[in-house]
């Protein structure tokens, strides 16, 4: 909305956000979203049981002391790539019959600067955003503070982004 009056510097976005973007044009009642809750639930269990959310596993990864995390991320990418290829190749549609849409990401310097900053935070907290939610679920309630701080970081980014190199 506001983007139209200014130069578009929201590089994440076609109109909104290349990550987590909602390509669907359909409107559904709220309870249709429960299926995403279920996917998230299963995903969270995998996170915990594979110890992806463990601060210790992240430290091992960044010290090259274990193959575990590399195996997980690598095989996840392999399965993801194959799935995306199959979806494109066979023009698979959503359960609502909509064609599945992909969009490309454009490069900007934020991927370098922001990427490095996130890497620092990842090694400190031992968590990327997803594991933060799962860690709280496992009973590490203090991680609520880490999550609130991450939300504050996102908010400050939104506040100062026009002044940052992109």
């Amino acid at each position, binding site marked *: 909305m506001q983007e139209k009056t200014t130069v578009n510097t929201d590089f994440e976005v076609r109109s909104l956000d290349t990550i987590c973007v909602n390509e669907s044009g359909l409107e559904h009642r709220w309870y249709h979203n429960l299926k995403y809750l279920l996917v998230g639930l299963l995903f969270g269990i995998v996170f915990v049981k594979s110890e992806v959310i463990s601060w210790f596993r992240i430290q091992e990864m960044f010290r090259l002391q274990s193959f575990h995390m590399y195996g997980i991320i690598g095989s996840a990418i392999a399965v993801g790539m194959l799935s995306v290829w199959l979806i494109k190749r066979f023009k698979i549609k959503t359960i609502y019959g909509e064609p599945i849409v992909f969009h490309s990401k454009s490069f900007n310097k934020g991927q370098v600067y*922001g990427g490095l900053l996130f*890497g620092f935070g990842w090694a400190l907290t031992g968590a990327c*955003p997803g594991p933060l939610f799962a860690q709280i679920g496992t009973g590490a309630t203090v991680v609520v503070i880490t999550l609130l701080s991450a939300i504050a970081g996102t908010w400050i980014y939104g506040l100062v982004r026009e002044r940052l190199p992109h």
Partner: protein
Amino acid sequence: MIEYIKQPWPWYVAGPLIGLTVPVLLILGNKSFGISSSLRHICAACLPAKIPFFQYNWRKEVWNLFFVSGIFIGGIVAAQFLANPHAIAIHPRLANELAGYGITHYNNLVPEDIISWRSLLTLKGFMLMVAGGFLVGFGTRYAGGCTSGHAIMGLSNLQWPSLVATICFMTGGFIMANLILPVILSL
């Protein structure tokens, strides 16, 4: 069976399951896998404060908040019903190094010696939890995604900017874990 599930899952089970999230979300409703945007949606919903970056229809993205709520509940379920009864096993060199910083408890997935309410107001705890969390939120949004959105979804869709981002995530992590974190843990 349940005893079997309670063991830590190997990478070749967990990795493909995480990868399957990509097609599942696409097929369920054209949703691109990504998690860090949930933080942006929370800002847009709770405190947009007339900042242009938070002026959009977050209600259209509410699926993402259901998804992360699910991750939270998944954490509860796994900890309550599927918990591994044994302490987490880590590389002896890391255990050795951490013992030097007074980290000796391995009962939780997060080290209770440094990440706990008790240590929150120490300099070390503040750096790890508050400063670390801030960098996660600021960095992921600046980079336009996190491990899920760039490393998994972006690379699955063969996006080279996501490769750049992923390399920078790892570079930042290596620098922090090997060069800066030892100083912080010595505090």
